[in-house]
């Protein structure tokens, strides 16, 4: 029994209670992500390469979680804006509160050339949901420079290129075999 609202029958017992919970958080954008966002406006994807293990994190976190060492601007590495789909999921949206999608959509992990950093939860465009495959080669579809906006970028690295990259479209290149991308990225 999950009514949308707790409208009680005026004569019967009250059996349900609504509570709408809303919290707002205002957090300073950390310097590492601030710099990442500035570069994004310029059409560049900048990650940090761990000086110890060589794994690349994008957006950068300011540390390598495997080695537990700090990473700084000195560890910056520019990644290509094209790469390979290494994982994806097809989300069939349930219309719960806050869900804006109505049709099945894809969220993909894209492992970028030039450093093997993975960007997660990316949109794929110009490809039907049922044709998405692991190994598929894709390239970023950037917004025109004047339209780019990084106000939605936060410290939490979800939506990692939101406001600048609309999604990733297939390049038409042959798929990359698994052994060429497995085990090369941090995740």
């Amino acid at each position, binding site marked *: *029994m*999950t*009514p*949308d*609202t*707790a409208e*009680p029958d005026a004569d019967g*017992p*009250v*059996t*349900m*209670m*609504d*509570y*709408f*919970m*809303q*919290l*707002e*958080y*205002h*957090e*300073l*954008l950390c310097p590492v992500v*601030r710099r990442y966002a500035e570069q994004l406006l310029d059409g560049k994807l900048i990650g940090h390469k761990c000086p110890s293990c060589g794994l690349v994190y994008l957006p950068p976190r300011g540390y390598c979680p495997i080695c537990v060492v700090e990473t700084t601007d000195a560890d910056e590495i520019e990644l290509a804006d094209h790469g390979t789909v290494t994982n994806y999921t097809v989300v069939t949206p349930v219309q719960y*509160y*806050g869900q804006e999608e109505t049709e099945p959509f894809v969220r993909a992990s894209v492992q970028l050339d030039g450093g093997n950093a993975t960007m997660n939860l990316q949109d794929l465009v110009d490809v039907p949901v049922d044709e998405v495959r692991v190994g598929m080669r894709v390239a970023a579809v950037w917004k025109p420079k004047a339209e780019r906006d990084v*106000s939605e*970028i*936060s*410290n*939490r690295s979800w939506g990692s290129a939101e406001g600048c990259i609309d999604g990733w479209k297939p390049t038409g290149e042959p798929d990359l075999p698994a052994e060429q991308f497995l085990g090369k990225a941090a995740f």
Partner: protein
Amino acid sequence: MCSTPAVPDAPLTTHTIEFPYTRTLGPVVGPFLTGLRDGHLLGVRNRDGRVLVPPLEWDPATGEPIDADFVEVGPAGTVETWAWVGEPTRKHPLDHPFAFALIRLDGADTGLLHAVDAGSPDRMHTGMRVTARWKGERIGHITDLTFVPEEAR
């Protein structure tokens, strides 16, 4: 507990979490809120005969289940302690300054936390009498009422 940002000019990100909850009430809280909708304050009697307000399903001292033996309490009571909220938040039940108080309703053995719309802190003191002021339209919710100094009725 102030909220002025300490790092000027640094970009601030805003993030909102929202969840709509609809909770079932069960055999004790349900009748309590039904009572509020109908303009009654209810407590529940435990094994020792103490009347607990708000009613609970289990005795906080022993952990034993409490039989749903409801007792009407109030509508008036005595303020056991109070605090003056000079700047209410959007989550508070009143949008002008008010007192939170623990109110020992007549017939109850415990204090109910609620709001007293006293108008000014000068009208509040421990030991004063307050009484329920019911909203015209009630749905079965703790905010179906507020308390006011008894002489205001």
